[in-house]
């Protein structure tokens, strides 16, 4: 019973995970007489300008595939919900694709798994505004003073999704997910421009948060559930986690196959 949006995200562009470079891992490697300890051990001096490695990638070198199950596409256990209801998920999944749509340059927010990313983030510290000052008293402030509400991000999302559907129903007699793309854009625009009358949350404040978390989901390390297979990074030639750019920093543009934190983990 996969909804239409789900179908899309179930078929992300088939991006092969490039191989990690094989780092030397003896900790305390000596470079130029200086013993480098710490987290990086012996990574200094590896040539990051090395696309060959990625091309030569054998499945067994791929950290996501490692070992016996090399050939099979591994199951992505990250694809389940921690916070959203299924309906909330579908609404967000549709909205983020309008903010960051699939096009010639590459996958959109759905294929990148952005809605899963947002779900997972809302389930944790960020969703609870855990490291933010949320003590009373609450007063309405000036714009220059920033957010002064008492609602946490997860509460704002819950209210906002409901209000997106209310507004969609009022304007187009359908829920947000069932609208045509240009109608969805109209709804998002109404939130962005505070044309929706709400007493609970700031529509534009929510839109800003949704936009920002869409970019976060598209471009954060795949460890968080978005940027599936580093496809967001590939789209903009971002190499992700690399240990050294000493060899390319003074050179013209150099394409480097991306590497993730999982690759780094697997290399040690």
């Amino acid at each position, binding site marked *: 019973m996969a909804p239409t949006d789900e179908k899309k995200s179930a078929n992300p562009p088939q991006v092969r995970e490039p191989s990690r470079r094989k780092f030397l891992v003896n900790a305390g490697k000596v*470079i*130029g*007489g*200086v*013993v*480098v*300890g*710490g*987290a*990086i051990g012996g990574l200094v001096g590896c040539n990051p300008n090395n696309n060959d490695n990625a091309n030569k990638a054998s499945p067994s070198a791929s950290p996501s595939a490692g070992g016996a199950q090399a050939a099979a596409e591994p199951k992505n256990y990250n694809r389940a919900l921690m916070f959203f209801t299924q309906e909330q998920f579908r609404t967000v999944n549709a909205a983020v694709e*309008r903010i*960051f*749509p699939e*096009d010639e*340059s590459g996958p*959109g927010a759905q294929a990148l798994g952005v809605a899963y990313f947002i779900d997972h983030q809302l389930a944790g510290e960020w969703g609870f*505004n*855990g*490291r*933010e*000052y949320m*003590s009373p*008293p609450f*007063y309405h*402030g000036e*714009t*220059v*003073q*920033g*957010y002064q509400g008492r609602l946490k991000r997860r509460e704002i999302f819950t209210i906002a999704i409901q209000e997106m559907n209310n507004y969609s129903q009022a304007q187009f007699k359908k829920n947000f997910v069932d609208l045509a793309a240009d109608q969805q854009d109209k709804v*998002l625009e109404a939130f962005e421009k505070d044309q929706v009358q709400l007493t609970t949350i700031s529509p534009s404040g929510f839109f800003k948060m949704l*936009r920002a978390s*869409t*970019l*976060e989901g598209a*471009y*954060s*390390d795949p460890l968080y559930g978005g940027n599936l297979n580093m496809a*967001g990074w590939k*789209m*903009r*030639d*971002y190499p992700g*986690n*690399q*240990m*050294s*750019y*000493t060899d*390319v*920093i*003074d*050179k*013209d*543009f150099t394409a*480097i196959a991306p590497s993730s*934190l999982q690759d*780094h*983990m697997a290399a*040690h």
Partner: protein
Amino acid sequence: MAKTLPKKDVVIVGVGWAGGIIAAELTRGGLDVVGLERGKERKTEDYFMVHDELRYAQRYELMQDLSKETVTFRANENMRALPMRAYGSFLLGDGIGGAGVHWNGQTFRFLPYDFEIRSKTIERYGKNKIPDGMTIQDWGITYDEMEPYYDKFEKMAGISGEANPLAGKRSSDYPNPPMKKSPPIQLFEQAAKKLNLHPYMQPSANLSQNYTNPDGVSRAACQYCGYCERFGCEYGAKADPVVTVIPIAKKTGKFEIRTHSQVRRILHTGGKATGVMYTDVTTGEDIVQPADIVVMTSYVFNNIRLLLMSKLGTPYDPKTGKGAVGKNYAYQVQKGNATGFFDDKKFNLFAGAGSLGMNLDDYNGDNFDHKDVKFIHGASISIGQTGFRPIGNNTVPSGTPTWGKEFKAASVKYANSALKVGAQGSSMPWKHHFVDLDPTYKDAFGDTLPRLTFDFEDQDKELTAYMTDRCAEIMKEMGASKIDKAKSLGPYEITTYQSTHNTGGTIIGSSPDTSVVNNYLQMWEAENVFVIGASNFPHNSGYNPTDTVGALAYRASEGILKYAKSGGLLV
């Protein structure tokens, strides 16, 4: 009843850059020192997973937990101050090393003009150049007096750089050659030279080569990894207190660090401190640490707040202008810039280092004639290549929508093809800009939060507009296909990051009436209390603060060692 511990020679409040330097110098001088740090221990090994933009840059992994403590802010006295609930304008350090762990490492000396700003401005332009309410004052110490301490900090940190042709005289070269010139930097250099300006490589605390400093500490060269500011360096290539001064202090056997120790009051009687009261945040226990000397290095806001909460020194009164604790809060005017979009060029913008860049100071300090402009001082203009990470860098040409198809296409297109030339503007103090105690909001211990009253003034708006034009001239010469100039400067807002260059509040000076500390950073009103940090700056220059903070810390440590022997006011 608080438990009382055995007395120490010195107690340091906060172990970041300033606290670390003090610890190294005083223990080497033979004193018995304890450092109280509210946050946790940090070490290079912690940064195994540090190339994580979301965790470190967007979610502020290394910074102070605002749920426990923040500042409140209002633009002026008629507004109700409200808490900075989420991070924005500046990011506060926490844990051993403080913000020194996650700084960029751009390491500038202030100009000779800065230290005598009032006299020199009047000398060249007359008294009327200084508008009503602008409370600039001379520092009570000159550049020449500061020079040896700058030199010391730069050698300890291993600064990589080349001499700035428009700055004060140096007694020696930077200990390391400048960093590598990336193609965007080369473009900037050529353009600036064509315009007869004086570009120089940014002085950098990211090592250009392996380096052993005069203390015998060896560190590895920077790898241009692009995860520098807001991150810790997994190579130890970025100078930070944890890999430089703190190990030196520890080696003496005379430095004890107590983490998870939130200092809440300076205890004093009869104009002298007797120690501090702190809370062990793991047990909730209140503890008294007696000491002969108290050194405050808890960054600008807590340096001020702790003095005010402890009722030490005379609080600043904005109505009368009397008193000095909390006076002359200033910041950085950071928003003058020009962005260039290059349709036919692509750069390795993913690579970079926190202080990889090139600057010019033709428009900084009093290096140009201010007769016909409506501001004093100026800005350092630079191009930086800090590593343009993908969440934080989605610059699109003006006129592009901020989301949807066109936004996505443009942001992807220019991901490696947009450069920015920016101005780091000085910030002048005003009678009505200050820090005091908030009447309403409290921290996790029930102590009052500091309250910030600050806004941008006409001076800042004029400066920004002028500098934006200068940035655009350079960008044009660099050959950008399209240039977007920064909008005119609006009011100060606390929601977008500008810089962690908060200054003032415990300022240095030559008179107890107009300053909190003398030029050894010794409190006029409590001779065994030394207060150190950017809180000492009577105004902020067109540069990052830490070279000057470090130099002041070396200066103070000399004073403290003197005081430990002879006592009394040193000036």
